[in-house]
């Protein structure tokens, strides 16, 4: 065994050389007398392990709160009244419900879409009106026309296979 191996053994010995704390026998007998159970391996980590974790959590919370607080309405924005108590109408009306533009023309303010209501609330901007575009017919041509695939047989006169070396 060379000097380096001796040093390795010596360091390994040092790594387990710490003696048990005084009073181990007394602590064991006290726990036996108290009917103490074996402690679970999953115990709460010591404070110095918890402190960095807790700090990181607080930091994340602070960033989250700061970002939430930085969301502000524009000065000219008009808050929209919540549609509480109204039945859901979907993005488009059904077959028998008029389109939002038609409802607006018909003077039914309750059936106007929220975006239009917001526009109406601003006095400077007139409510945009979109006229319907008359379309007679839509013709869509197929992009690719499939034709029959014709595969002709390949004529092979002879196959030559040379011997492996």
């Amino acid at each position, binding site marked *: 065994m060379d000097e380096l191996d001796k040093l*390795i*053994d010596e360091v*390994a010995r*040092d*790594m*387990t050389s*710490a003696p048990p704390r005084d009073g*181990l*026998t007394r602590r064991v007998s006290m726990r036996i007398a108290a009917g103490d159970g074996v*402690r679970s391996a999953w115990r709460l980590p010591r404070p110095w392990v918890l402190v960095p974790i807790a700090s990181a959590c607080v930091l994340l919370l602070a960033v989250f709160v700061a970002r939430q607080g930085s969301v502000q309405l524009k000065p000219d924005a008009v808050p929209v009244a919540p549609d509480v108590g109204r039945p859901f109408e979907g993005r488009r009306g059904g077959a028998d419900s008029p389109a939002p533009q038609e409802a607006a023309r018909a003077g039914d303010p309750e059936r106007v879409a929220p975006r239009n209501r917001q526009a109406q609330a601003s006095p400077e901007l007139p409510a945009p009106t979109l006229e319907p575009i008359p379309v007679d017919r839509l013709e869509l041509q197929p992009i690719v026309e499939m034709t029959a695939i014709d595969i002709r047989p390949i004529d092979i006169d002879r196959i030559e296979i040379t011997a492996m070396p």
Partner: protein
Amino acid sequence: MSNLHVNAGDDVELVARAREGDATAFDQLVERHQAAVHRAALAAVGSPADADDVAQDAFLQAYRRLHSFRGESSFKTWLLTITWNQAINHRRSAGRWWRRFVSIEAEDGTPFESLRFAATGATPEDLAAHGQLRDAVRQGIRALPATLRDALLLAQTGEHSYEEIGAMVKAPAGTIKWRVFEARKRVRQYLAAHGHK
């Protein structure tokens, strides 16, 4: 001080008395084997405070299971097997495992190495170089795979025979010898890779 040759016959008598409810008999068993138990626990968990917890739990569990000890192996081997299982459970908890590798110094703040060369007349440069080499050896041991590191540390405690280590980690004694040999070889390779010839 090695307890490798604790009289097994005395243990049998103490176990018999402890089973009959003699508390002082079990106290004597704790006194006799606490060093071996503590060093085995320390080899597994790396921290003296955690090793103390493991040792307490191991003795407590041994006391509870005393009726199941049939004397097929020595009491010490049986106790060390309980200790090792307890230590491995303890080591598997993520926090302690992490702490073991984060911590470079021993818990009391003193490095593992001791200045035992102070009285040899070596120059400060020699001492510094030797200290660095010892640190590198310690890091090399820490970097070993768990099976090799456990075998090396347990073998060097001076408290456990290869047979006892084999019983603890559930491997033949020959395998333990090979692991110790392999561990030394890997540490030498680690040192060479880190510029220590």
